[in-house]
């Protein structure tokens, strides 16, 4: 569709209204950019960008319009909920949090411009959250060389180390990575669910391949085997062949990796042909939300889902209290809430006159065995910027994710 040529001059001449629209759009853009510049720089009394006498401005790139909005939009709601609670109780060291969100439409080719806008036009102090592993990795290529703190790249495949495994100096991850999750899933399905043969449906990108590799390693170690694996892309709608390929391997269980919609379509395709593996399915953590169970309908009953957040904590109870009017619990929204808490704690630890360097010190030294508030603890040091690595398992029962295991440490199953 982008290949279509621009209208010929004769066509343009005939269209007065579009020209007026174009002029109005330009005026609007100029006004908006003027507003943006004013907002970003006003009242700054600190040497640090984005920090004024009464406000700390941070920015995030969360898709609210494109293919991963199903995950990123509720995360944004969770962020906003926590920041509004903090602002209502006086803010951080007397400053209110101003969180600027922009959407890159889930398209990583737009992420760099989105981050640049946040940094160069909105003058944010730090980047908090870029949604999507590929998108986050693009954002890092901009923030790391400029020494801009980037907290919580969202996506199990986000990079937080360089090629030599050394922690990237300005990136702190809270989420577990797909590699660790692959090990724990392999351990769980082989030892607890007693699956002797396992198949995998994975999103065909670097993250899915990473999980395919670690899942296979762990299955082999614990006496099971990955007998088939099929990749898919995010926009795929027909899963007939993928289903036939996996079914032909007669697995005890199929692991579903990646995105909620395609994996739900795969399960529906299999169900339409009267098929379900002997031990059913196990989905990885992007599916750890009741909305996925709802999308699946009756075919979702009994499916296992990996996750890393427990609701049996004071922070979770505080969240549930604040969202009691929500029609359903959203794990994504909860994710936003608890990560906003980590961000706020980091800003507090950065001192009363925060700079990017003081925030970095706080993140590198103030988060040892830090209680995340959602179950696992988190440790960041100058050498270690990875996220949590503990996982638990849920099962869909009556349309709800129900815990069926304690937390399992990745380091315990794959030292």
């Amino acid at each position, binding site marked *: *569709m982008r290949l*279509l*040529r621009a*209208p*010929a001059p004769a*066509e343009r001449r005939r269209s007065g209204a579009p020209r007026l629209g174009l002029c109005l759009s330009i005026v609007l853009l100029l006004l908006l950019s003027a507003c943006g510049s004013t907002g970003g720089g006003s009242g700054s009394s600190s040497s640090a960008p984005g920090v004024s006498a009464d406000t700390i401005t941070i920015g995030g790139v969360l898709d609210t319009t494109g293919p991963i*909005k*199903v995950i990123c*939009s509720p995360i944004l709601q969770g962020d906003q909920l926590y920041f509004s609670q903090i602002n209502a109780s006086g803010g951080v060291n007397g400053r209110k949090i101003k969180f600027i969100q922009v959407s890159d439409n889930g398209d990583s080719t737009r992420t760099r411009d989105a981050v640049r806008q946040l940094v160069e036009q909105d003058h944010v102090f730090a980047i908090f959250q870029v949604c999507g592993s590929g998108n986050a990795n693009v954002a890092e290529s901009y923030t790391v060389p400029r020494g801009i703190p980037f907290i919580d790249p969202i996506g199990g495949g986000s990079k937080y180390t360089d090629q030599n495994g050394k922690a990237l100096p300005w990136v702190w991850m809270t989420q577990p990575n797909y590699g660790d999750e692959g090990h724990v899933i392999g351990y769980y399905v082989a030892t607890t669910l007693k699956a002797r043969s396992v198949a995998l449906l994975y999103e*065909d990108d670097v993250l899915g391949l990473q999980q395919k590799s670690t899942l296979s390693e762990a299955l082999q170690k614990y006496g099971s085997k990955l007998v*088939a694996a*099929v*990749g*898919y*892309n995010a*926009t*795929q*709608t*027909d899963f*007939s*062949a*993928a289903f*036939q*390929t996996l*079914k*032909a391997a007669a697995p005890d269980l199929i692991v579903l990796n990646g995105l*909620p*919609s395609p994996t*739900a*379509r795969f399960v*529906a395709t299999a*169900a*339409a*042909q*009267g*098929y379900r593996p002997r031990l059913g399915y196990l989905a990885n953590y992007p599916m750890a939300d009741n*909305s996925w169970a*709802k*999308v*699946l*309908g*009756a*075919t979702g009953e009994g499916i296992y889902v990996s996750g890393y957040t427990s609701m049996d904590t004071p922070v979770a109870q505080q969240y549930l209290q604040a969202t009691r009017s929500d029609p359903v619990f959203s794990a994504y929204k909860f994710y936003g809430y608890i990560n906003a808490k980590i961000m706020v704690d980091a800003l507090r630890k950065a001192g009363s006159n925060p700079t990017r360097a003081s925030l970095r010190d706080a993140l590198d030294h103030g988060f040892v065995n830090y209680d995340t508030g959602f179950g696992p603890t988190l440790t960041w040091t100058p050498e270690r910027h990875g996220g949590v690595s503990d996982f638990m398992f849920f099962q869909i029962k009556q349309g709800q994710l129900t815990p069926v295991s304690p937390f399992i440490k990745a380091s315990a199953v794959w030292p």
Partner: protein
Amino acid sequence: MLALLQILLSGLVTGSLYGLLALGIVLIYRTTGVLNFAYGALAATVTCFLYVLLTGPHLPFWQALLLSLLFALLLGAVVERGFARPLLAAPILTKAIATLALALVLQTVVQALWPQLTSPVHFPTPFEGQALRLGGLYLSLADGLALLTTALLLGLLQLFLQRTRLGIAMRATADSLEAARLMGIPVGLIFLFAWMLASLLAAIAGVLIAARQTVIDVQFMDPVLLLAFIGAVLGGLDRLAGAVVGGLVVGLADNVLALLLAGHSLGTLDLGDPGIRQTLIFAGFVLLLLLRPRGLFGGAALRRV
């Protein structure tokens, strides 16, 4: 062998759905000269409307479907009068680009009216979980309906265009707008009818695809539409049967390639990669168009006035 047969069956179903969409695309293109990129959005809008009827007032499925199909006719009429008619004299490219804008408008309106459909939702139908067993082959009820409906609609449309006065008038309008006018054919009415009919076809295709996938959102037709367009172009863009055959070719190729390439690699290249598969399909499409620029069944060059 059984897996291959099952894939051929699935490919036929997928292809018939592409073909059903391609039917509507060709119908509008032939009659009004509009290459309608909003066709998927039309289908999605009506399917979302059906979803709302099913989950809001909880209407029985068939009642809700009937109302949705009536809504599709109305939507087609509104789009023709409010959008296509004012652009009637515009160059074909302008009209095509305008349909892109129309698609965005429709999606935005649906999002505003029914925000729950911005995220994937479960699409409930009475066919869910029901399947026919043919030897070792499974055919879900939704898939069976898709095959049956496509064949039925293709036959009915052919009959309508060949045997009824209105159908003949539509063909005459498609052949020459000026001649049709001179013959006293109410071309305005023909355009209106073509858009209503195409909108109805879009709605039926959308509902069948939703019933098959069981998951929809406001953009669920976007990836399907591209493949339907390939089917329409392969079929020649000027023959209804060609459109369906083109759709079938695309659906079968997609499924069979996926099965045959799974688990194979060429050096470091994973041939099972869905990106590789799509590249092969698109490359085959381009190659075929190089050999037969008017598609598999395309006729002589169209002359638009």
